[in-house]
Structures are given as C-alpha cells and as structure tokens.
C-alpha cells in the first residue's frame, strides 16, 4: 500500500468554503427557529400541503441524486468494469454524504424529531414509509462500511482493512439490493394516492420509473462531481470515464423515455400531455429538458467527448429528476386554490444541507485517500 500524503496543494479554506459555511450558518439559524417554534411557524406547509420542499428535495430528490454510489459499485465490483475503479471511492463518498444529509433532512422535517427511531422498533411492515426508513438506515450503514477503506488506510489499520476487503462482495451486493428497494419505494409512496396525484404522473409502475430515473441521475451526478472536483482539486480527469458515464446515462434515459411514453399510452392518458393545462406544461418541461434533450446531447459522440457538453447534459438530467420528484409530490396535493410556496427558512435549510454536503466532501477529499485508490492498489 502506498503511503498516503495529505493534499498539500489544496487547503480546506477557500473563498468557496467560506460562502458554504455562511450558508450553513443561515441554515442552522433557520433550523433553530424550526425547532423552537414548530413546523407551522417555520414553513408554508399546511393541512392541504403536508409534504413540502423538504420532502421533495431533501428526501425524494436527495436519495435519487445519491444513486451513483450503487451504480458505480455495481459497475466496478459486480460487472468488473475496471475503468471506473478510480471513481468508486468518490462515488461511495458522495452517496454516503448524500444519505447522511437525507437523514438530517428527514429529522428536521418530521414533526417529532426525537422519535426518529420509532420505525426501527415499532414495526408496521405494510407501510412504504417503514420500508424506506429501514432501507435508508441500512444502506447508510452499508455506505459507511464501504467508505471505511480510505479511513483505515489513513489510520494504517491494515488488519481491519483486510477483513473489510474480504467482505467487499456481500457488502456491495447488499448495497445494490437495498438501493433497488428504496429507490423504487420512493415512487411506491404515491401508489396509494390514485385519486390525488395527477394522472400524468400517477402510474402503477412509478416504483420502476423512480428506479430507472435514479440510475440516470445518479450517474450524471458522478459525472458532475468528477468534473467539478478535477477543477477544484487541480486533478486530471479521465475522459474515458466521463465518456462512458455519458453513454450509460443516454441509454438509461432512452429506456426511461420509452417506459414513460408506453405507460401513458397503455393508461390512455397520452392526450393529457398536450391538453395545455398547468400540469401538462410542467410535464412537458420535465420530459423535454430533463430527458429528451440530454439524451440527444449524450448520444452525440462529440458532446460526450467534451467536458462542457457532458456537464450541461448531466445538469439537465439533474434538473429533470428534480422536477419529476417535485411534480410528483406537488401534483398530488395542489389544485382547487391550494397554494404552497416555501418560506425562506425552508429554502435556507435545504441550501444549507447541500452546502454541508459539499463541505464534508471537501474535508474527506483533502484529508483521506479518496482519489488515490487507483494508485494505492498497484
């Protein structure tokens, strides 16, 4: 094992980190307000809109954005695609941080934060929420184990490291199964609302749709992260990896689009797409901006080979999945004079959680051998 040196070329504090810390401070203030005065005072949620920005972004979208972890571990360990090995650790790190943030977001969002552990003790196996809480808890544990090697390398605990590495395959497989279950279950949340959720989004195969779109957005996030961290940590990025990810995203988006259209036709709702309603406009933007355009872009070899093109396409996919989760959540609640617009506190906490994620990522990359695995292995 190669001796690890701290990244001396990058210091933790930069202008960017300062801004993130300020955003985190504002979020902490907003969270303090929420815990002191309650959800009603801190948010715009109401009996008409019980699930607001936090559920839509911090939970539904957050979990999907962190899907790169299981996507890359599956590629590297199960399919033995060695090319992606250098990004396995960053992808696992992103997923781990992503899930920690989802859990913090959930604890802030639930009305009784001190009882967050209840589902682990009080079982109700017919609840999707029960399953999601269990899967998220278990998968976060799996991610923590998957991320121990860089920590153990740093600490030079080779004995424990060997034990962990011995169990790599069972751990990776457990992670993929847990991800499959809860990524799709986030879509299954809405199966129980056939009379509430707009028919453009309501489908018996929402679980499968959530899963497929999670793969697309998870891989896109890995692309974005590779590009941004190459820039931030003055590293070389590997064009082969970015290109391969782009291809994977394009194929996944194609599958997703075919499933979406076939589902609308089978359910006889295809005409709703063009009926000019508010929902149809949101749907069209979601599908065009988030699925069709990035799919076409990433199908073009020239764009796949350019960093800018890949970056823009990946951002579009992220935007599309964000919109999908927001639309699914809000079009099951809005209508008939129901209005909801997040308060500044809701925005501040969501922005603060994202900032926290970036700060943790930066800390980990600077102080742990996250990018060095490829070198260390040889």
């Amino acid at each position, binding site marked *: 094992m190669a001796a690890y040196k701290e990244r001396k070329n990058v210091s933790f504090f930069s202008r960017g980190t300062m801004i993130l810390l300020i955003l985190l401070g504002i979020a902490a203030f907003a969270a303090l307000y929420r815990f002191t005065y309650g959800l009603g005072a801190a948010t715009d949620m109401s009996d008409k809109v019980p699930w607001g920005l936090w559920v839509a972004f911090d939970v539904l979208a957050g979990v999907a954005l962190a899907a790169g972890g299981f996507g890359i571990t599956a590629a590297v360990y199960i399919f*033995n695609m060695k090319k992606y090995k250098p990004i396995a650790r960053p992808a696992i790190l992103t997923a781990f941080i992503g899930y920690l943030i989802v859990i913090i977001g959930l604890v802030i969002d639930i009305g009784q934060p001190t009882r967050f552990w209840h589902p682990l003790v009080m079982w109700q196996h017919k609840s999707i929420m029960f399953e999601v809480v269990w899967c998220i808890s278990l998968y976060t544990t799996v991610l923590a184990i998957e991320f121990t090697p860089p920590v153990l390398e740093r600490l030079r605990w080779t004995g424990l490291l060997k034990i962990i590495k011995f169990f790599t395959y069972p751990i990776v497989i457990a992670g993929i199964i847990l991800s499959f279950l809860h990524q799709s279950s986030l879509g299954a949340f809405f199966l129980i609302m056939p*009379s509430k959720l707009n028919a453009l989004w309501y489908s018996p195969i929402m679980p499968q749709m959530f899963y497929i779109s999670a793969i697309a957005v998870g891989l896109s996030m890995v692309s974005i992260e590779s590009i941004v961290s190459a820039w931030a940590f003055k590293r070389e990025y590997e064009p082969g990896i970015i290109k391969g990810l782009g291809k994977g995203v394009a194929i996944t988006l194609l599958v997703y689009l075919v499933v979406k259209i076939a589902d609308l036709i089978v359910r006889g709702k295809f005409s709703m797409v063009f009926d000019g309603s508010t929902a149809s406009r949101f749907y069209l933007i979601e599908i065009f901006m988030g699925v069709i355009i990035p799919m076409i872009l990433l199908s073009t070899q020239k764009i796949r080979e350019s960093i800018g093109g890949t970056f823009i396409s990946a951002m579009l996919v992220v935007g599309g999945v964000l919109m999908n989760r927001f639309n699914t959540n809000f079009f099951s609640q809005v209508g008939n004079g129901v209005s909801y617009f997040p308060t500044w506190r809701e925005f501040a906490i969501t922005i603060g959680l994202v900032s926290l994620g970036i700060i943790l990522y930066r800390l980990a990359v600077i102080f742990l051998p996250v990018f060095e695995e490829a070198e260390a292995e040889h």
Partner: protein
Amino acid sequence: MAKNEKKPIGALIDLTKCIGCRGCQIACKSWNNRAVKKTVMTGNFTNPIDLNSETYTMIKYVEKEQDALMEWDFIKVQCMHCKNPACVSACPVGAFQKSPEGPVMYEPEKCIGCRYCMMACPFQIPKYEWEKVSPVVQKCTFCAERISEGLIPACVKTCPPKAIIFGTYEEILAEAEKRIKENPKKYVNHIYGKEEAGGTSWLYLSSVPFETLGFKMNIPKRPLPDLTWASLSKIPVTVGSLALILSAIAYIRNRGENNKEEK
C-alpha cells in the same frame, strides 16, 4: 348494546334531513375538548373553512340557485372510518389501527410526524397541529370511548332532525338501501361510502348528486392499501432473486481475477 359489541359499527348520514344547525360540530368539540380556532370571514357560512386539528367534524354549506332563490345543501364531514384504511397502512409505526368494532384509532405517543397518513387518506381527514412545537395528528375518533361505554357518538346523539343514525354496519347499510328503495325519486341511487376506498364505516345518502356537493368521485372501489402492498409484497422475492443474480454475475465477471491480484 351488548349484542352490538362484537359486530362492526357504522353510521349513516341522510343529508336530506340535515338542517345545517352545526349541533354536531359543537357537540363534537365539547365532548372531545377541542379548542376554538380563530377563523376568517369567507363570504360563505362554512366555518371554519375546513376540518383542522381542533375540528373533527363540521357542516359545509354548498350554495346553489333554485327558482331564482339561494338554496343551501348541508354536508357533514368527519373521518369515514374506512374498513381497510389508507392511513393505517401508510403509518410506519402503527400509530393508526382499525379496531375490530369499527373506529380507526390513533396513538399519538407512537407518531413520528411523517404525515404520510395525511398524504395517503383519500378523504383528506387527518389534520396536523401545525402551530405546536410538538405536534400530533388529530381526527374524528368515532367516539370510541363513548361506544365502549355503551353510548352513541356525540354528534349522533345531538342531531336534532336525526339525520345521523348509529348502529351495526349491517343495520345502517340495510337502512340506507331501504330508504333508497322506498323513495327512489327522493334519493340519488348511490350510497356514498358503500364502495369508496373499499367501503367505509360511515355512509351517506343524498337527494342531489354527490359530485355537486364536493364529494370525491374518483376514489377507487378497492381498498387503497392493496396498491402499496402490491409493491411491498414483492420484496422477499426481489431480494432473493437479486442476491442470486448479482452473485452469479459477480462470479462470472470476476473469475480468475483474485489469483492474478494476489500474485
């Protein structure tokens, strides 16, 4: 009432008999010790505008024009006490339970406040104590504690025109069918709640189509928990087959690799 203890209970609201006095609204508040919430003028008699954490039941006033005069339809709303409730299946900690007697019960000590019950309920009944720092869900209890003492629900007891009847589910369903049969011109041929969401313990009769009264007409006739169970029940098979498939792929794709690496 002793003979009723084993059979599930039900209640029938005959909207044609409701006079909109709000006696039920007040009796409910009084029995359940619900506080008064500040309300606003909306230009409509409905007050408060909707159920809330302090209001388990209320009368809604639907205005309509009849012979150039303003007319009202009155609708009493409360928890429907579904036979197979969405809230019970949605709750991750089992805070909601359907008691064998009929009432859908809620244990606030278990609740984590995820509000999935509110999202899942097709009738939008569970309400949250948004203004509180430590909020719980609130909804109609079917006066379960009164019923266990052999009494009838507070709203039923107080209703001056006897627009609400309480009894075993069988009795009130038979009564609803009898009324429609005897007065087919008076009632629309629909017992609301008989089939909605797989059937509810509260049933409604009306002389005007339910859709004009704001009742939700697009609620499936099957129990809603079936929809999520269809997904959840596949988990054991999914886990098993995924574990097998992934192990097989990993084995095939990585054959011989380990030896190479160790050298």
